[in-house]
């Protein structure tokens, strides 16, 4: 059992810079939470506060109901995996994995059993006599995870563990982390700035910006019903297209386009009648064959899909990306008719979502 409750946590540095504002989160036992956001948004700081590597300026942290806000890092029963592996170069893999238990003066036979079990889980049994320098980046990161596993901590903390790996290895190691989570059923907090990692790994995602939590939810919730413009733009690749549009009777009017609204959308946008809002459309929700004219300026073939960039109408500012299914060879200056199959609406002033992702 390991439930983590983070209540109203702030981080204010000595120079009065506030890195985290009123962070609240309840992590259930066995849950994998991913903290995602751009660099400098406070996600690593939050993780380090949970680990005990940074002081908590205000608020409380509870582990299984016990207040551990002031508990030293070594007594928190949490294990952290770092981006740079933090392995001892002069020790073998076996010694690296056994190190924390050796320091605790555990029985060497018990340590041996735990290390072999962790190595078996991570597929490192044949590497135990090697030094870290003889392993690939992915294997080193697995060793770092193994070092955490042997401790059998209540909570695993991952601070951008895949950032040092190349794209292929990152994908493979990501799948290993997912399998590891399923196998151990452990409570895990994972920090990344890579939304693909967040979407593929998380039970729930915490999206952060400028020290504030923007939205907490399942990957589908964040993708389908972003709480605000920031989440909508951050989650999804390529990012969402945004257009300024005015709410008219039954339709939205923007520069160079008009979009009909469904009854439900109309109802949601009723308070905004005559006002300007922001229309968000994901590139994958832009489909060919509508009435909106898109002027192409670049065409990227991705195999199964074609990513077409252009702008709507004559308005050069209305840039749009469309992820069209199939192989197309549009040239610069071509005009393509498109339709928005799914729309998101955002308040122009606050950036908050209006009526959360209605189907067209």
């Amino acid at each position, binding site marked *: 059992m390991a439930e983590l409750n983070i209540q109203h946590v702030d981080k204010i540095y000595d120079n009065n810079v506030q890195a985290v504002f009123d962070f609240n989160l309840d992590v259930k036992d066995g849950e994998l939470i991913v903290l995602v956001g751009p660099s400098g948004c406070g996600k690593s700081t939050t993780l380090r506060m949970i680990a005990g590597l940074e002081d908590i300026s205000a608020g409380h942290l509870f582990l299984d109901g016990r207040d551990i806000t002031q508990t030293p890092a070594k007594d928190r029963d949490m294990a952290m995996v770092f981006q740079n592996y933090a392995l001892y170069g002069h020790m*073998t893999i*076996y*010694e690296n994995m056994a190190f924390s238990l050796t320091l605790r003066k555990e029985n*060497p*036979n018990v340590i*041996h*059993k735990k*290390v072999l079990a962790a190595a078996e889980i991570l597929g490192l049994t044949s590497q*135990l*006599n090697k030094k870290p320098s003889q392993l690939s980046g992915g294997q080193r990161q697995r060793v770092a995870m193994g070092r955490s596993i042997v401790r059998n901590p209540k909570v695993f903390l991952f601070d951008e563990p895949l950032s040092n790996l190349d794209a292929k290895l990152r994908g493979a190691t990501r799948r290993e982390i997912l399998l590891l989570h399923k196998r151990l059923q452990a409570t895990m907090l994972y920090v990344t700035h890579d939304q693909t990692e967040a979407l593929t790994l998380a039970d729930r995602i915490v999206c952060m910006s400028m020290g504030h939590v923007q939205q907490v939810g399942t990957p589908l919730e964040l993708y389908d019903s972003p709480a605000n413009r920031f989440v909508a733009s951050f989650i999804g690749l390529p990012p969402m297209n945004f257009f300024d549009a005015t709410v008219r009777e039954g339709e939205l009017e923007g520069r160079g386009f008009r979009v009909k609204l469904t009854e439900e959308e109309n109802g949601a946008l009723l308070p905004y009648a005559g006002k300007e809002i922001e229309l968000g459309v994901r590139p994958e929700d832009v489909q060919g064959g509508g009435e909106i004219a898109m002027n192409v300026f670049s065409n990227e073939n991705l195999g199964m899909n074609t990513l077409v960039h252009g702008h709507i109408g004559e308005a050069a500012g209305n840039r749009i990306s469309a992820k069209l299914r199939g192989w197309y060879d549009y040239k610069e200056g071509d005009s393509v008719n498109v339709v928005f199959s799914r729309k998101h609406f955002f308040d122009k002033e606050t950036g908050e979502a209006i009526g959360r992702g209605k189907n067209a």
Partner: protein
Amino acid sequence: MNEEKTIRLDRMRYTKNTLASGLALLSIIFNVFFFISIYESNVGSWYYNILIGASILYNLVFMLAAFLSSEGIKNYKIGYSYVMIVLGIIQVIRIFIYPMRAHTATVTIQDQAVTVMENRQFIFCVIWLLASAACLIVGAVVGMVRSRALKAHIATLDKAA
């Protein structure tokens, strides 16, 4: 074979033989104490012959061989156990070369007969050499026993596989 013993043997597959290796390194330290003790003698020219040159060279060879043995034995290489036994025996023989001869020899300084190596210095030299030899031999035995046990354990694992 009980489980504890099996795990203890299995551990050796991934851990170094630090006991035997440490003993080999300790033997070097005792050897250093020995030659420091012998060089503190100040008895004219009694030592000035080919033997002291050979002794100095042997000290260098000994330190190199003992260090290499410590590295070898650390990785359960049984051959280095034999090297350590030979080095240990030579350390015992060395007692009869310099300390014993110097202890019984006298030189004349300012018309007075002086013993080359006094009792205190002699005892220390013998202790350092014996300690060095003991470390080497015990280390060699430990290395031998563990190396054989590990070899047998790996053979059992191979057979089971």
